[in-house]
């Protein structure tokens, strides 16, 4: 508290230049404390929200609606992303592998990269942009217009009514989207391989099946579940704590997308480390 008021209330005067190192330490210390505080708040929020996912009353109708909003309507975005990723992957790896006379590895590289890495991560990022933003904007607007307060006065817990359905839907729908993305992505590689690079259709499919193991797909789906949870949780957290007015909602939306994207990349590394080392 002392450091905080010191920074805000005293402008830097010439006599204080000598104090500069101290001032820098204060600023750094203050921002680290602020950072830790927001991590604490976030963990508390996520813990509370998760607990509410398992405690009745449940809202099945709302959860179903979120399944449709988050899952079904993200399908085109995720599908397109997967298709073109698979296609470009086949093209690029072919260029590389011909230099080592290893064209036969193209199908395997496409299958492994798509299922283990690219489908979950790219789908996660796309959904962060689409779903994370809309969750934050919707809940943020409800916060700003006191609709969340109104829920409370009508004896409905906003964690159960607003947040739990979105967390559940995010966590369950993203693996499903990624599974579809896996298939479309591999199919994209197949199209390029067969119609453009001259592979025989039977060969390509056989090579794909040969190399792909169950764990490759499952690890990708587990990643997807974690990413889906992250996207929903970030959207809800930033929306729920949205500042006042239209600007507050705008900022909340930005934070939701940015923080979800970064956390997805961080957790992607952590999970890969856990699964494959």
């Amino acid at each position, binding site marked *: 508290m002392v450091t905080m008021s010191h920074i805000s209330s005293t402008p830097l005067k010439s006599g204080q230049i000598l104090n500069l190192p101290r001032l820098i330490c204060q600023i750094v210390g203050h921002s680290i404390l602020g950072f830790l505080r927001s991590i604490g708040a976030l963990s508390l929020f996520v813990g509370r929200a998760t607990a509410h996912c398992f405690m009745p009353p449940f809202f099945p109708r709302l959860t179903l609606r979120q399944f449709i909003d988050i899952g079904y309507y993200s399908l085109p975005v995720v599908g397109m992303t997967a298709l073109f990723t698979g296609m470009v992957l086949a093209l690029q790896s072919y260029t590389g592998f011909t230099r080592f006379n290893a064209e036969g590895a193209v199908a395997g590289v496409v299958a492994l990269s798509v299922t283990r890495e690219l489908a979950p991560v790219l789908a996660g990022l796309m959904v962060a942009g689409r779903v994370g933003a809309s969750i934050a904007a919707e809940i943020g607007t409800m916060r700003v217009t006191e*609709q969340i*307060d*109104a829920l*409370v*006065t*009508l*004896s*409905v*817990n906003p964690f159960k*009514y607003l947040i739990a359905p979105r967390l559940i839907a995010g966590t369950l729908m993203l693996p499903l989207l990624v599974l579809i993305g896996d298939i479309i992505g591999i199919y994209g590689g197949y199209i390029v391989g067969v119609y453009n690079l001259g592979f025989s259709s039977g060969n390509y499919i056989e090579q794909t099946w040969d190399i792909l193991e169950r764990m490759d797909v499952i690890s990708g789906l587990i990643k997807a579940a974690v990413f889906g949870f992250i996207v929903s949780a970030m959207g809800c957290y930033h929306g729920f704590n949205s500042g006042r007015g239209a600007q507050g909602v705008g900022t909340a939306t930005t934070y939701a997308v940015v923080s979800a994207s970064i956390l997805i990349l961080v957790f992607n590394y952590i999970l890969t480390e856990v699964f494959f080392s």
Partner: protein
Amino acid sequence: MSKATSPKIELSDIKKSFGSKIVLDGVDLTVNKGESMVIIGGSGSGKSVTLKCILGLIHPDSGSVKIDGQETLDLRAQERDQMMKKFGMLFQGGALFDSMPIWENVAFGLIQGQKMERGQARTIALQKIEQVGLAAKTVADLYPAELSGGMQKRVSLARAIATSPEIIFFDEPTTGLDPIMADVINELIVDCVKDLGATALTITHDMASVRKIADHVAMIYEGKIIWTGPVAELDNSGNDYVDQFIRGRGTGPINKHAGFKTV
């Protein structure tokens, strides 16, 4: 104190600041069961914040809020959800759920809070919509954004009273309404207290409405309740601030630039 004699709402020494701005600086207020209390006070003086502190939507920095003699500030989440069933609140801004049609807004507390069957809840909602002077048939299936500001306010009022709560808060119920409709709403609030035995706490700037609905009046100024008494004594309160406020004079002890004290 036994439950029978404890006041319905009892605030003592409620303090709340936002940043360095002190909004409530020790509010004491007692509302008895079946009483209609009206809070008056300048714009931005902390009236809405007071209501939100009672409801627990804003957590006061210090002080005590007792409902039926029970301290509420340290309630656990579930007990608080339970306690909320006693309350109905009309928000100053309406706060209607914009993703739901009007009737569902009004029926929300019945369907979600009381687990009433939807058909039955709709029937009650339509009645309440009629009671606030709207044609239920035409508005029931519209969305909040399709109504005028005053109509939204009345829907919000219908939602607040739909569950027949024991304690009802009205934050500026007649602002934005024409004089005739304002009178209809005033009557409705009086009915809630007289017929349903509810305890009401109303915020208003409209002196006609104060005289119509209040049993007791409290005036808030600079974060404190500076006067409280029966509505009959409002005109000879002997308090210069109250006198200036109810007569709406530009000059007097209340400075129009009155700011907030800071920490």
